[in-house]
């Protein structure tokens, strides 16, 4: 029996009760949620698992959410990140967008709005990945016409690197 694939979500917030409750709610729906309560742990957890979307508190005591955003976007090119804050400002929204955030939400939010934003982020991730894979396949097709088997293998390994 096939089960609907859940969206793999990394949820980071230093407000532990909020994090746990919101994660449980999302987990009852279409999300497979992993939580972290600070920026450094979030970066470590992201290295270990493969996530579709990250939901990131902007203000945390150890590392600012924007620093975590930068680190995540640098290492995980297909990961979409939504910023969450109780301290919204136009300046921080612009900064996060420049750093590659997919969306910027203010606490407290409408739960349905959050779910919708997460779904849109996931779809954007799929589109980005599809475009990337398509380009790679085209590249491999060209290569396979003239390259040695070793050359093709090297290209395939590069493809794996991009997946991280």
């Amino acid at each position, binding site marked *: 029996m096939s089960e609907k694939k859940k969206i793999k979500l990394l949820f980071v917030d230093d407000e532990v009760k*909020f994090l746990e409750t919101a994660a449980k709610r999302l987990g009852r729906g279409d999300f497979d949620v992993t939580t972290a309560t600070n920026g450094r742990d979030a970066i470590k957890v992201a290295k270990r698992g493969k996530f579709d979307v990250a939901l990131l508190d902007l203000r945390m*005591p150890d590392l600012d959410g924007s620093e975590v955003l930068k680190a995540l976007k640098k290492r995980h090119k297909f990961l979409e990140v939504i910023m969450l804050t109780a301290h919204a400002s136009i300046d921080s929204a612009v900064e996060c967008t420049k750093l590659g955030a997919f969306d910027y939400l203010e606490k407290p939010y409408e739960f349905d709005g959050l779910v919708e934003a997460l779904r849109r982020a996931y779809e954007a991730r799929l589109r980005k990945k599809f475009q990337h894979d398509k380009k790679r396949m085209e590249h491999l097709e060209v290569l396979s016409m003239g390259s040695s088997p070793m050359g093709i293998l090297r290209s395939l390994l590069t493809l794996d690197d991009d997946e991280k």
Partner: protein
Amino acid sequence: MTSDAGVNGEERVRFLGRVIASVSHELKNALATVSESAGLISDILRDPAPSEQDAAEVRVCAEAVADELRRSFGIIGRLNAFAHSADHAIAEVEVRGLVDLTAALAGYLSFASPVRIMDTGDGEVRIETSPLQLEDLVYRLLESAFRLRHRGSEVRVAVRGVEGGAEIRLSELGRYRLDDLLSEESRHLVGVLGGHLLLDAEVGELGIRLPHRIRSRSGA
């Protein structure tokens, strides 16, 4: 721009704005937890066959709501106490209580480190001063401490009664240059309160000595 009478209106509004922003940040976090807890209870109750684990979940959510409401009432209580600081331009204040309140308000800043008010054994330390401007000064000092020191490292504050008034000492800040610690505006504020700064590089503390009674000035 400043005047001898104290920091100007724009600066005062800026200080109030900073406090309100940090308090609203804290309240929104509490409300977000309440909102999610209520939502989770509602989701569970919609389930036609809730499990035993769901029932336990409802209890956890109800406790979380109660905790967050207590937290919110505490925040509002402190905000109310702060609002009354502006009732009188000059009033008798208990310095440790004032520092404690200001540290709690500054503690809502996202980058805030823990602040520990040390027990100096001096009991109550009372002076006659401008409560709002002293809170402004303490807030600025704590902001500097949070900005300059490692995230998460504790800031210790000691309040003592000294001859002629009171002294507030902040740990570790004595290692920094005064220009890095306090803006010109903040140093002016020290003067307005009739106080002076003491940088004790040996023990690494920054002290502010305040008089028993501020010289009464219009607008102070």
